[in-house]
C-alpha cells in the first residue's frame, strides 16, 4: 500500500465527517440529569437530530409547534429528520422544565 493511501485512510479515520456527504449531518443532543444540551442548536433541513437520553427517566422531545413528538425511553436514543426550516422550541412533556431550541436553516 502506498504511503499516500495510508495517509488518506488515517485522515478518514480521524475525520470521518470528511468522507460523509456534507448535506446530511446527524446532530446529537443529550438529555442528562434533566437537562437538554446543547440547549441551543443550529441545523439544516434534511439533518437528523439524535436525542440521547442518559437518564433513568423517560423523556420526550416535543415541539411546541407540533412538528415532532419523539419518545425517549430511559437510556435510549431516538432520531428525527428535520423537514422544515424555522426556529422550533421544544420541551419534555413529562418534565416541562427541560427546554431547548432548534434553529433549522433551509
Amino acid at each position, binding site marked *: 500500500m502506498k504511503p499516500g493511501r495510508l495517509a488518506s485512510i488515517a485522515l478518514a479515520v480521524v475525520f470521518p465527517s470528511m468522507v460523509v456527504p456534507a448535506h446530511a449531518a446527524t446532530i446529537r443532543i443529550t438529555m442528562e*440529569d*434533566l437537562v437538554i444540551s446543547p440547549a441551543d442548536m443550529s441545523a439544516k433541513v434534511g439533518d437528523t437530530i439524535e436525542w440521547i437520553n442518559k*437518564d*433513568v*427517566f*423517560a423523556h420526550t422531545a416535543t415541539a411546541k409547534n407540533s412538528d415532532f413528538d419523539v419518545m425517549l425511553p*430511559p437510556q435510549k436514543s431516538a432520531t428525527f429528520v428535520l423537514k422544515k426550516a424555522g426556529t422550533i422550541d421544544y420541551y419534555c412533556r*413529562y*418534565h*416541562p*422544565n427541560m427546554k431547548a431550541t432548534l434553529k433549522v436553516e433551509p
Partner: protein
Amino acid sequence: MLIRWSAAAAAAIMLSSPILLQKASAADKPTDPQIAHIAYTAGVIDINAAKQAQKKAKSKDVKAFAEDMLRDHEAVNKQALALVKKLNVTPEDNEASKALSRQASDKLAELDKLDGTAFDKAYVANEVAYHKAVNGTLETQLIPSANNAELKRLLQTGLKIFRGHQQHAEHVAAELK
C-alpha cells in the same frame, strides 16, 4: 439520638412545615443505609398514591399526573435498588421510614373514602404537600447527611425531579379550583 432525629424527620415530612425541621447535629445524622431506606419508602408511598389515583381519579389532568408520578418514582426506586446492590448496602428500616409508612397508609384510607372531584382535589393537595415536605427533607437532611457520593448524586437527581413534580402538582391543583 437516632430516634430523636427520625421523629423530627418524620414530623417534618408529614407536616410539611419547614419550621419543624430540626437541624441535626453530626451525631444525629442518619446513616447511608437509613437514608436509602427513607428515600425508597418515600418513593413507594407516592407510587401507591398514584396507583390509587389511577383507579379513582376523575379528571384527565389528575390521571396524567398520577401516571407521571408512577413512571418517575418507579424509575428512581429502580435506580436506588441498583445502587444499593452495587454498593452492597442493605437499606435499614428506621423510625422515620416507619412513621412515613404509617401516616401514608392513613392517608390512603382517608382518600379511599372520597370520590370524583373531591378525591381529585384531596389527592393533588396531598401531592403538593407531600412533595414539598419530601423535598425539604431531602435538601436539608438527607442530601447533606449522605456519605456515599453516588447516593448523594441520586438524591440530588431525585430532588430535581421531585421539584418538577411539586410544580406540576401545584399547577394541577390551581386548575382544579
